[in-house]
Every structure is written in structure tokens, then in C-alpha cells.
């Protein structure tokens, strides 16, 4: 069996009484895009910084690309790209200078590939980082993480702060490098930002891994809030006892429903009346948790 790109074994990190991460065991293969999801404070950044040997575990260990995260840290970093969540870059450098600097520290990179990335992501390399918005700085961070064609890319909340167009270019890039055999490990606190790109998703909460599954399976458990507005008042009985629908409130022409899995039954019930508007709220990660916990209890 070949080595996993990421092989985490009962990894734990405590800060005094705070258990930032507890007994995380996880395996991610090469060629896989793995979404690491959890609300703020769940332990995503802690996990990622442990993998990169920036902080040291209280217990447990991790192997990246078949190498020990502590002992072989330098060899691992040679083949790994990293994007921190709180991206701080030297404000005096231009974006191009930053890429040059890290490129030199890596012993040179394929400049054609790098310049291609700069174009795809839409980074202006001549701008001083001080003058860039958070989103544009993030572009520099993304290019930097991919420019040496890493076998493993670890990205901490890469999509937050990116405008939708760049987000798409970024997710295309993620899929492309994964198709080329690299492993992409990305964290987020919003499922919708990673569900298109991730093969599997792990959900972490309060330092503990809650579940690992494919995006499709998780969405099946996902809970959505749908708000339906009709042109006139509708009877409450029409929306009672529907499959996969709970917590229905009918208030005149407004129906608020919570749907687990497929909204098919609700939509068919609604079709009997004249619908003015149907607005799904975002699938919040919190809801996926709720679904998971409900099932467990």
C-alpha cells in the first residue's frame, strides 16, 4: 500500500486547560480534495499548524507524504504548499517580490507555471502588498501555495474574502492539481464554499472529529431552511406530515420549513398553490451538525 498524503494518528493539542484538538485520527489520499469543516474555534487552524510543524502536539503524531511531521519537517515543506488563514505578508514587498523571495527559498520554481497561476488567479504582481485588499493579498497567498507544484497543498480558509469569480478560478485550480495527483487539504467554516471541490469532507467541532464522509452523503443528511411565499394564504394542513420536513410554520402566505435531505415532498406540496417566491437559506455548517447529532441521538 502506498503512503497516504496525510495520515494523522490520535493527534492532540492542549493549551493549558483548553483542548484545542483531541485525538484526531484521519487519513487523506493523494489525488484527493479533502474539505476540513468546522465552526470558528473548532480546531482547524490548530490541526493545520500542527501538520506544518509550526506548533507541536501534546500527543499523537502525523505523517505527511509518508514522512514524520516533526522529524522530516523540512523535507515535507519542500513538497508542500501552505496558505495560512490569517495571512500576513511583508507589506513592503510587491506581490511579485514576495513570490520571488519564496521561490528562491525553494531553490527556484517553474516560472512559466507560476506566471500562469498569477494570470489565472488575477494577481497584479507589481502592486505593493500594503496597498492590496485582503482578497487581493489572498491571491498572492494562493499563488505562493501552488507555485512550486506541491504534492500536498494545505489551505486554511482559502475561500474566505475571495470574490466569487476568483473563488471559481481557485476551485478549478484545486480540482486540476488533485487530478494531477496532488492532495489538497482545505479548511472552511462554510460547506457551500468547498462542497463543489471536495471529494470528502471531515467535520470537526470543539476539537473533535465528528464525521468524515462524501459531500453527497453529508448533503443527504443536511438540514435546509426553506422559506416559501405564496400569492395568497395557504392551509397549514397541506404542509403537515410531509416526508423529511419538520418544524413547519404556516403564517398566511408564508411557509417556513426545515428540510432534511431531499426537499421533494415539500416542493410537491407547494406546487398545489401559486408560489411567489422560494428562498433557500445557505446550508450552514451548523445545520449539518444538527442533522448529524439528531441521527446520533
Amino acid at each position, binding site marked *: 500500500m502506498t503512503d497516504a498524503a496525510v495520515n494523522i494518528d490520535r493527534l492532540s493539542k492542549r493549551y493549558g486547560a483548553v483542548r484545542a484538538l483531541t485525538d484526531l485520527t484521519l487519513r487523506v489520499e493523494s489525488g484527493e480534495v479533502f474539505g476540513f469543516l468546522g465552526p470558528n474555534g473548532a480546531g482547524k487552524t490548530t490541526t493545520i499548524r500542527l501538520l506544518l510543524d*509550526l*506548533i507541536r502536539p501534546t500527543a499523537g503524531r502525523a505523517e505527511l507524504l509518508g514522512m514524520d511531521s516533526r522529524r522530516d519537517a523540512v523535507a515535507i515543506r519542500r513538497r508542500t504548499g501552505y496558505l495560512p488563514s490569517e495571512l500576513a505578508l511583508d507589506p513592503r514587498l510587491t506581490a511579485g517580490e514576495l513570490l*520571488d523571495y519564496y521561490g528562491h527559498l525553494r531553490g527556484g520554481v517553474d516560472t512559466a507555471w507560476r506566471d500562469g497561476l498569477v494570470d489565472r488567479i488575477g494577481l497584479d504582481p507589481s502592486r505593493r502588498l500594503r496597498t492590496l485588499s485582503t482578497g487581493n493579498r489572498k491571491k498572492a497567498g494562493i499563488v505562493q501555495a501552488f507555485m512550486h507544484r506541491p504534492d500536498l497543498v494545505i489551505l486554511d480558509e482559502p475561500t474566505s474574502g475571495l470574490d466569487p469569480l476568483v473563488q471559481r478560478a481557485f476551485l478549478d485550480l484545486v480540482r486540476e492539481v488533485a487530478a494531477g495527483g496532488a492532495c489538497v487539504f482545505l479548511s472552511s467554516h462554510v460547506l457551500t464554499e468547498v462542497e463543489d471541490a471536495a471529494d470528502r469532507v471531515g467535520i470537526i467541532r470543539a476539537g473533535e472529529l465528528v464525521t468524515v464522509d462524501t459531500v453527497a452523503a453529508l448533503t443527504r443528511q443536511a438540514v435546509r431552511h426553506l422559506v416559501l411565499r405564496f400569492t395568497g394564504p395557504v392551509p397549514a394542513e397541506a404542509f403537515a406530515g410531509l416526508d423529511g420536513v419538520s418544524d413547519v410554520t404556516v403564517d398566511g402566505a408564508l411557509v417556513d420549513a426545515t428540510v432534511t435531505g431531499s426537499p421533494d415532498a415539500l416542493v410537491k406540496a407547494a406546487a398545489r398553490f401559486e408560489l411567489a417566491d422560494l428562498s433557500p437559506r445557505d446550508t450552514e455548517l451548523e445545520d449539518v451538525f444538527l442533522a448529524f447529532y439528531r441521527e446520533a441521538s
Partner: protein
Amino acid sequence: MLGSVFTKTLRDQRRSVIGWLLGIVLLIAYVVAFWPSMERSPALTQITEELPEALRAFVGGADLTTARGFFSTQLFAFMLPVLVGILAVGKGAATVAGEEERGDLDLLLAQPVPRWRVALEKAAAVLATIAAVVAVSCAVLWTGIAVIGADVTAAEVARGMVGLGLLGWLLAAVALAVGAATGHRGTAVAAGAVVGLLAYLASTFARLANGLGWLAAASPWTWAFRGDALGEGPGASGVAGLVVLTAALLAAGIWRFTERDVGV
């Protein structure tokens, strides 16, 4: 300048260093320009002769009526070490702890360079910057002395500047080591300032008090300049003491840096 951590760190420092250098050069020029009129002033000779022995020690222990003693006192007893010391402590604290607090150390430490090496190259760059500032100061002072024709040799100027540079190195090492060990810039600045101040006080006041000679002898400030910066300078033992202490501090700080959590 972006080829290595060492050259990048040099580049980071260049702008503020030019400002410091300008200040130091102005101070040197000012003091040098003063000497010709002081030399001809009988009042100075008289004052110096009337000074109690103890007080003379306080101003550096040098003989103010000679050009050597005058420059030792006016430049090396306080002003130059303070200027170079502030620069050293500031850069020492900024280069690891400052970057860590700002957050950009995270990405640097994710590059394939060992952590100890990042810190070592940064430390080397700070020491190189101090050496460059002191070297320019040395050239400026020697040129000034040559221009006014004062009775000070190049070797004497170099002696004082070596002491100055090594004291600067030591203070930079204190700040850098404490910053690398703790990750806190404020702590690093405080450590450097306290060590500098204590070294100064021990070197000057202890020399005045009976029975505290050992304290003066234990001060790195004394190692750097002894009684008279240009006349005596650090000597071989002073150089050795300062270099060994600097190296030991850096080694300890960098070792702690490699062992601890970064950016927490």
C-alpha cells in the same frame, strides 16, 4: 536582496538604518568640530585638573585634555553606545519576535528552510547591519580626525569602534535571543534595554564606589571600553568575552525558538 533569509533581512533594515547612520555621523561631526577650540581652551585643562578622581572616572576615566580622552569621553562614554544600543535592541527585537507578532513568520517558516537556520540568518543579518553602521562611523571619525589633525591614531579609533560594535552585538543578541525564545517583541526590547542600562550603571557608578570594582569588572560595558575607549579599548579579553557571550545568547535563543510553538 530576495535570494536568502539573510539578504532579505538586510533589505528589511536598510531604510531605518540609513536614518540612524545619519544621526551618528552628525554626532561624530559635531564632536570632532568642537575639539580644535577645546584644545586651545585653558579653562578645560583647569577644570579637568580640578575634577575629583572619582568624577573623572564617571565621565569615562579618560583625560579630557588630550584629543584621545576627549573623543573617548564625548563619543564613547555614552552617546555612541546609546545610539548603537537602541539600534541594536530595536533590530534584535524586530527581526524574529516582531515578525512573529505581525504574523508573517508563519509563511516563512513553512518554506523548506530549517527553523534554526531562519533565526540564524536573521541574527547574522542584524549583526552585519550593526557592523556596517560601526564601520561607517569608524571611517567618518577617522576622516574627521585626519581633517582637523587631532593627535589620535587610526588604531585607536579602530579600538574604540571594535568595543562599540561588540557591545552593540551583545545588546542585539540579548533582544534577539529573548524575542526568539518568547515571541514577544516588547519583552525583547525590555530585556535589551535593561541589560544595556545595568551594564552602563555597573560600569560607571560601581567604579566610583569602594568595593564595587568587581561589579564594574563584570559589566560588558567595561569589557567593551575599559577606562578609556580609544586608549584601552576592549583588549583581547574584552573581545573574547563579548563575542562568546553574544554567541551563547544567540545559541540559547535560537535553540528555544526551534523547540517552541510559533505564533500562538
